[in-house]
């Protein structure tokens, strides 16, 4: 089944925020009432004691039976675990930013415009009377890591292989004078991409091909979908050449991996920052 998301009418999106700027989310606004003091390094029990007799003006509102947690009026629980978690996240974010290969999303050569809407990216190009769109989503786009045998062979001082994002991508081709969009669902081979050196297979494959009505958001199940698993090789080669003529070739597929990997890393860091803000009371 071809990916319906390819034809979803998506609003033009703002580019993803750059991770080196201020944290993605503003600090959680404190509720009206007592303001938390700066977090003290003392153990949690001392926070209970600071709470005093439970008056409304108390700086801290101790909550009995909350396993060492304290309520500061923000509506959240604060445990030692949360504190450790927040610190861990802070360290993790720092490390991720250090190894971030692309601070800004890399360009894809060939005159492609990029639109990003959260985890979904769209590359657009016009060639003569045709509009070509390539859509992918970075969620679940990182293939499983190397197996245990390989890891055992790895020397301790060798670096772990880089994480790469190899998302499925959907190519849509619309000609000006037709009401049908040709939709091709493309995949990267599961075991081979991202390894050092060249492998012996195609960089990407076409899995399914279908026509869908142009401009309609709903996927038409009743339109025939060609599965390439048992397709005549000559026809398959023509489809690959068709894509190559429109700029979707091996070089493009490689650059898409770079873009997807950069976007995935960016979103991962943003997620960690959001998680830190969520866990840690500001």
């Amino acid at each position, binding site marked *: 089944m071809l990916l319906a998301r390819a034809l979803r009418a998506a609003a033009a999106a703002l580019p993803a925020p750059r991770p080196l700027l201020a944290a993605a989310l503003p600090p959680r606004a404190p509720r009206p009432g007592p303001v938390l003091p700066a977090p003290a390094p003392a153990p949690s029990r001392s926070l209970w004691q600071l709470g005093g007799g439970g008056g409304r003006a108390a700086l801290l509102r101790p909550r009995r039976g909350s396993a060492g947690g304290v309520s500061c009026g923000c509506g959240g629980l604060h445990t030692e675990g949360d504190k450790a978690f927040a610190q861990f996240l802070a360290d993790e974010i720092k490390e991720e930013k250090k190894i971030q290969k692309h601070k800004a999303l890399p360009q894809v050569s060939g005159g492609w415009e990029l639109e990003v809407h959260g985890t979904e990216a769209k590359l657009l190009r016009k060639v003569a009377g045709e509009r070509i769109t390539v859509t992918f989503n970075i969620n679940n786009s990182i293939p499983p890591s190397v197996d245990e045998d390989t890891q055992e062979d790895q020397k301790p001082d060798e670096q772990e292989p880089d994480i790469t994002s190899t998302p499925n991508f959907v190519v849509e081709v619309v000609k000006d004078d037709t009401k049908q969009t040709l939709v091709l669902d493309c995949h990267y081979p599961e075991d081979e991409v991202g390894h050092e*050196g*060249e*492998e*012996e*297979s*195609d*960089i990407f494959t076409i899995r399914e091909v279908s026509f869908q009505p142009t401009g309609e958001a709903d996927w038409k199940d009743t339109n025939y979908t060609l599965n390439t698993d048992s397709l005549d*090789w*000559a026809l398959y*080669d*023509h489809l*690959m*050449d068709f894509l*190559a003529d429109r700029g979707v*070739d*091996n*070089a493009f*597929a*490689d650059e898409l991996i770079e873009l997807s990997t950069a976007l995935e890393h960016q979103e991962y860091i943003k997620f960690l920052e959001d998680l830190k803000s969520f866990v840690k009371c500001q």
Partner: protein
Amino acid sequence: MSLVIRNAQRSVPLRRAPLRRALSALLAALGASRFDVALVCAGDGLMRRLNGAYRQRPEPTDVLSFPAHRLAAGELPRPRCRHEYHLGDVFLGVEYIARHAPGEDLEGVLTVTAAHGLCHLLGYQHNTKSEWQQMYQKEEEILEKLNQLMGTNLRPLTAGLF
């Protein structure tokens, strides 16, 4: 007959359909249409790795053939089961070829190189002068048939080797 083509390199823009048409015609000219062949269009990295692993020459090259059968020159396999219909794999060093034939018709050069690789799958060699002459004649013959079919003017790869 199953002709599997893979493009494992990113450096040189390629069109697969014309290559398939040419190789199918060459296999027919060799009398080997009923057999399976795999053709991999490879970059320098893969060719270097294979050349190093199998010929102890870790450098890119234009073509490497891996025959599935041990055959006398021009002999065809006598398959006893389905998998014996596989003639072998031909790796075209596309990046190497493009680099060494600037300005030439790349499709033509790839076809001539592939013809050479296919002849290797059928037992042809060029280690001695007589072996080379035999192989050269066969390449000339199948390329001439291709030229008549497609209106090309392709010549064997190993002209002037000896």
